[in-house]
């Protein structure tokens, strides 16, 4: 645990009477420590991705093709060169390509090049797409990708936040009423979460779009997009119902089941019994004695869930034609747009780590061991 690194300083100080600046400094240190660790992790992760992508020299081929194209364009625009005989012109082009390859260090050994690619990937310098373009017409992979992030974020954030909080609230309710028919129903339904969200999506489309015609098959807004903001939002909402329901259907039962079990285990702790004996209300016990100590594991679970969601979105978005990062990857695969595929994988790796990092900060704020620098956990 990272909190271990902070132990020594805190031992010298009295444990109570925390001053605010102290907490902030500690938090800052924690964030820097975790940030560095995660940055190293992402560097290695992206490097592995680059290695896998370039196993057959694919990145090299792309870059050499780009250089040839650029050189070709330069030569074509230069009127003085057109008078040269074809054989000399070809030699001139080849020389230029070799020069450019040297300049871009493509003639270097593989290790050096792979580091170059790593830096490119980390700085999101992802090159140009072969076929796909962004809505604004740009061929820069970075722009194409950035344009898609809001859609993915909108969908997965809406679905996961509602899923997460619904699950916890129902679980809290069930931990108070365990053994009821509703509780048993949830336990019985828990295995249904094995089925991935996109799979539920297919069924939802079949029922609500194909058979009942009450909700759209997919997409983000109606075509053509409605003109007024109100109508636009309404259309967006209508298009979101099915994918969001698919994610919730997928996660809700097992979510409730796990949280319920978790709360039940925590509510049999002695201090909870003590609180009950003191005559505190059920709500207070829940908030102060059950929820509070379980917050850090809840956040961990949340971050783990998000990691799976970033990846699960690929197929869900494809099934619902949702114009996000995942569907872009699918489109890039189907027309074999290599720079977009590589860029997309790098971006997903990035998003994953960013998510983990942000949640780590939340974790640090919530976990008293980090805040006041408690003992090392065994």
């Amino acid at each position, binding site marked *: 645990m990272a909190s271990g690194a902070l132990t020594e300083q805190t031992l010298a100080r009295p444990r109570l009477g925390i001053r605010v600046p102290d907490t902030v400094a500690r938090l800052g240190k924690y964030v820097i420590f975790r940030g560095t660790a995660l940055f190293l992790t992402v560097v290695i992760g992206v490097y592995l991705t680059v290695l896998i992508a370039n196993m057959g020299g694919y990145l090299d081929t792309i870059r050499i093709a780009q250089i040839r194209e650029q050189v070709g364009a330069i030569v074509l625009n230069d009127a003085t060169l057109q008078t040269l005989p074809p054989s000399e012109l070809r030699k001139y082009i080849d020389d230029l390509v070799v020069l450019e390859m040297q300049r871009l260090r493509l003639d270097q050994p593989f290790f050096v090049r792979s580091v170059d690619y790593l830096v490119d990937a980390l700085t999101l310098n992802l090159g140009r797409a072969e076929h796909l373009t962004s809505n604004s017409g740009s061929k820069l992979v970075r722009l194409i990708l950035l344009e898609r992030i809001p859609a993915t974020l909108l969908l997965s954030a809406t679905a996961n936040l509602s899923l997460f909080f619904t699950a916890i609230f129902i679980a809290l309710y069930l931990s108070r009423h365990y053994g009821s028919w509703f509780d048993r129903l949830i336990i019985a339904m828990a295995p249904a979460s094995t089925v991935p969200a996109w799979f539920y999506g297919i069924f939802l489309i079949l029922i609500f779009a194909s058979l009942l015609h009450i909700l759209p098959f997919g997409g983000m807004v109606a075509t053509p997009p409605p003109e007024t903001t109100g109508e636009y939002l309404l259309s967006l909402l209508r298009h979101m119902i099915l994918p969001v329901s698919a994610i919730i259907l997928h996660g809700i039962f097992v979510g409730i089941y796990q949280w319920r079990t978790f709360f039940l285990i925590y509510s049999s702790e002695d201090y909870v019994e003590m609180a009950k004996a003191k005559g505190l209300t059920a709500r207070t016990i829940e908030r102060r004695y059950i929820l509070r100590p379980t917050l850090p594991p809840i956040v961990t679970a949340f971050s783990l869930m998000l*990691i799976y969601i970033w990846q699960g979105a690929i197929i869900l978005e*494809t099934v619902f034609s949702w114009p996000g990062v995942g569907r872009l990857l699918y489109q890039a695969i189907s027309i074999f747009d290599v720079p977009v595929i590589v860029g997309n994988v790098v971006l997903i790796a990035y998003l994953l780590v960013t998510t983990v990092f942000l949640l780590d900060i939340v974790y640090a704020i919530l976990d008293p061991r980090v805040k006041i620098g408690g003992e090392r956990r065994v």
Partner: protein
Amino acid sequence: MKLPDPIVQLTHYRSAVLGLFIIGALIVLSIVTVLVIPYDEAIARWRAGEELWGDYPRNAVPEWFNLFAGNSLPTTIIINSKDGKIPKDIQKVTDEMSTSDMKFTFDYPWDRFPSEINLFLTAKFAQKKPQATMIWKTPDGRQIQLGDTTVGIVERFAISTDQRLSLKLEGRAPEVGLFAQPGTIEKGKTPVVQKGRYELIIEGLTFEKDSTLDAKLVIYGQAYGLAGTDHRRRDLLLAMLWGTPIALAFGFLAAVGSTLTTFSIAAIGAWLGGWVDQLIQRLTEINSVLPTLPILILIGTFYTRNIWVILGVVIALGIFSLGIKTYRSMFLQVKEMPYIEAAHAYGASNLRIVFRYMMPKIAPVLIPTFVTLIPNFVFLEASLSVLGLGDPLLPTWGKVLNDAYTNGALYKGFYYWVLEPAVLLMLTGLGFAVVGFALDRIFNPRLREV
């Protein structure tokens, strides 16, 4: 013989019994499938084209739909003059030339129209191609000229796509126009099938002594077999059957591969401690931010879509999964137990301690995890197939879903095409998940209480 305790306990969970039954049925189905249709034959048949599937209807629903549709969906009618069941009237005209008339008679009792009509003509000749004139006779005695053609060695006379015939039939598709009651095919009216006995008369003319003319009439239905057919006329039953062993094998091998390696590595790390343990932990953290599915997609796109290679990659990516952390904390407790100390004292090797003493101790914990992992991998394979990265050779459930999706099955109303693989996938997933959940409660008594 006494059954092992966990299995007896498992039978106490009604859902688990159902799950076991589903798993058992799937395993039996897999074994039967592999025995009846060998691997190579399955691949060859699934990849075959018109030469094998030419007589099958396109996008036909399963035949048992008729139970609910009041027997209104036509099945395919195939009449081949080579079978000798067709009256063939051969008359010599001159020494060389002779007529060869065939009469195809069949009953059409269904309420819906056929989906397509094809006539396959074959001829034997040295130089002069035979000729054929086709006439269609409806039950009420109307005659419709279908046109004439010279017949090469193999000739396909696609009646359904004959534009001139369509014009003759008020612009209706020939398979509708030819089977409709008179007066119902005009614009604005709904064509109604005329039930009864139809005839197709082929008046052939051969110009050589040994020249012969044969024909096969195929009236494609709207329903076929147990599972229906896809857009390439293939029998979906083949894919549904072969999808079973593939899904089970993929799920099972991936689950075995990744849990066993994860488990051993956690044990080794916990026992050896020090830098080995540290390294394993750091690798786990790196692995947890590696995007598994996108990496599989990269490999599928750039290198190979072979399902067994993908399986290997799935296992490799699963080795340093987060499970290591859970197992490690358990092994750390086991490590302190007296019997391990005893083993260490008598000089047991590291390998012996890890594999003979530590791992068996908490192996039961693996069982529920293992069972619940199987459906995840089954769905992973389906996910890759849905993205178009399925195995190029084998028919799998995911590939059928992908075909259905790319051909707009949901928009066009071919629900069976989506539902068949989906239901099978769902059954597999739920079967394993239900058993896994029950096992989890058996092996983790803390869960049983609550």
